[in-house]
């Protein structure tokens, strides 16, 4: 055995050391397989954003050569980037997956939800999401949330129990010991599962580069008509921007996150390749959310408050 091992690991710094990306990948795959082994109706939240794209890629690897044993769920705010919707539908078709859609627009049309004065629909996602989870009886819901994103998320477990109202109670979290994840839940409750908990934004990009994963074009620098609001470049569009006082200009930008158009900002960038994006992020002095998410700036505890209500 020793001779084989020496041959295999020759050239690496330390025998049996996994690179940090291999460690993170192995851990995420373990999490996917635990859920497949223990839950009846898991679903992957899939927005067409980079984190959910990486999640799907990991799920495909975890069960290869068999199909992914999960369906997908998109909470559609109605304010999507067209390139992202196109990517979503193409990916679903390519892998023969089933996509559930929970539509914020439907809720607004039915009068159940009311458009906010600021036009932001991000907080409106919670009700369609939680009602869909109840209606479809999903018992495990994968999210691409990472603990490095936000300090309330730094407190999040990998397996995070939600009550029948999808609420998160940070004081009642189960301790998570070794890699022995506890997925027990009562009927009506579900578990939010975060396989990318231990990844950082840079890890996600390095992994995308290593694995050659295709992304929606808006992640790379392109010319776009934008206007400035609260220090961010927002895309002009039918969702309600710009206001009269705001002026549209053409800029070379890219997106670090993909979400609702009304609150997801673009950053000035000339990075057109993965390598350039990685260099840009490694040098950035702003966090992903700090740079591009208006909704997190609403209050010091905006994320925690939304998570308590059932948001991811």
């Amino acid at each position: 055995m020793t001779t084989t091992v020496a041959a295999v690991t020759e050239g690496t710094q330390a025998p049996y050391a996994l690179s940090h990306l291999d460690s993170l990948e192995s851990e995420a795959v373990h999490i996917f397989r635990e859920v497949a082994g223990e839950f009846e109706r898991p679903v992957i939240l899939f927005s067409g954003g980079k984190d959910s794209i990486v999640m799907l890629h990991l799920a495909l690897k975890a069960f290869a050569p068999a199909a992914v044993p999960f369906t997908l769920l998109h909470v559609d705010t109605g304010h999507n980037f067209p390139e992202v919707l196109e990517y979503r539908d193409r990916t679903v078709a390519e892998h023969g997956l089933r996509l559930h859609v929970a539509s914020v627009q439907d809720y607004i049309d039915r009068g159940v939800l009311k458009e906010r004065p600021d036009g932001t629909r991000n907080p409106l996602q919670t009700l369609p999401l939680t009602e869909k989870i109840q209606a479809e009886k999903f018992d495990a819901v994968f999210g691409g949330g990472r603990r490095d994103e936000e300090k309330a998320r730094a407190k999040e477990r990998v397996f995070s129990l939600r009550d029948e109202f999808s609420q998160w109670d940070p004081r009642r979290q189960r301790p998570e010991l070794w890699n022995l994840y506890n997925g027990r839940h009562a009927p009506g409750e579900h578990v939010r599962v975060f396989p990318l908990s231990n990844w950082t934004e840079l890890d996600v990009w390095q992994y995308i580069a290593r694995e050659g994963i295709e992304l929606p074009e808006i992640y790379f620098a392109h010319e776009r008509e934008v206007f400035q609001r609260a220090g961010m470049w927002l895309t002009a569009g039918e969702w309600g921007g710009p206001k009269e006082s705001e002026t549209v200009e053409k800029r070379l930008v890219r997106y670090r996150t993909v979400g609702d158009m009304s609150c997801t900002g673009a950053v000035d960038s000339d990075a057109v390749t993965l390598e350039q994006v990685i260099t840009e992020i490694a040098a950035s002095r702003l966090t992903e959310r700090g740079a591009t998410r208006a909704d997190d700036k609403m209050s010091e505890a905006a994320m925690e408050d939304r998570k308590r209500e059932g948001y991811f």
Partner: protein
Amino acid sequence: MSTTTSEALSETTLLRFATAGSVDDGKSTLVGRLLHDSKSVLTDQLEAVERASASRGQEGPDLALLTDGLRAEREQGITIDVAYRYFATAKRRFILADTPGHVQYTRNMVTGASTAELTVILIDARNGVVEQTRRHAALAALLRVPHVVLAVNKMDLVDYKESVFAAIAEEFTAYALELGVPEVTAIPISALAGDNVVEPSANMDWYGGPTVLEHLETVPVTHDLSHCHARLPVQFVIRPQTAEHPDYRGYAGQIAAGSFRVGEAVTVLPSGHASKIAAIDLLGEPVDIAWTTQSVTVLLEDDIDISRGDLIVPSKDAPPTTQDIEATVCHVADAPLTVGHRVLLKHGTRTVKAIVKDIPSRLTLDDLSLHPHPGQLVANDIGRVKIRTAEPLPVDSYADSRRTGSFILIDPNDGTTLTAGMVGESFASPEPVKDAAEDDGWDF
């Protein structure tokens, strides 16, 4: 960090470590200093901290606000739960389990240390080794964290005297080694002034060792697998049943210990069926050998009945299966654990019914004294338990394998995680251990 290429970044390794320290040891300052001086705090995070500090009327930015993320924590100025932090240097990526030093310290430190390769134990140089220090050392020994760093903090308040540091380091190291902690690295620091955390101290030229960060960057994270028992808990059976793969039947799991190679004779537990490894898939790529902690899919030569919860082991190195488990546990739930308690026990990928047959003793971490037959364990208690399981389990001693020697107990009624368990002897004592058959005695 900003100048490193992406290629160099992706070749780094990952170190998981935990911090332990009581409220006034300066733990938040150390964590803040590590994050700040390694340039892992970004402008908007710092601005948020400055804003929040100013709105509270504080003069400078309070770095503890970087780590206390929840409303209740900020309102009360305390940390209520383990948080995980991330930072990187050109050499390594770090996952820091930031464990609060408050009343619930034991379960929080157990939670943080269970996945850690290293623990940083903080001491206030003015106070030296105190009860809390001994508690932290005992927990590190109990959890068998491979590396312990003793950070003797607030050296600036003892005039950076070598004699103060040397006396503390000697006392702690002797105590820790007695408990079986395999390695102690003592570093004199001032987290507040920044001495020896990231930058070497100009105030302690008598110290020739590494800074905290240098040590974190260079401590080995690999183990000599030739002494490890190879173990693969089966998580999921992969059966595509497609035209392309009509007969594919693979056993997916994350290797918990050791290594496996193609052609190796293996046994499946608890059934005892034997076969040989026909192929190993490493996430879609065939490989000849795979090792901990890779997630793999193993194919066997024979068609035998294997399902989730089984354990694949080398035939020449199979653990015994047993329905009677003796273990050291840390109770993590608010409701007590009592003799006669019916629970679920999760070991690897298998969850079985179990009953707590006996609680022979409870350990006082302060002085390692034993309280015989306490009747129950309450939150944060460490104790010895005997458990009878409904089905035989292939368990290793925690001393041999942190993965296959550990388990959790779960309340079958509401799913609460009750207890963290470590099979076998409590401490890796260098002294020969007494016979565990004595009912009322601790075996260390």
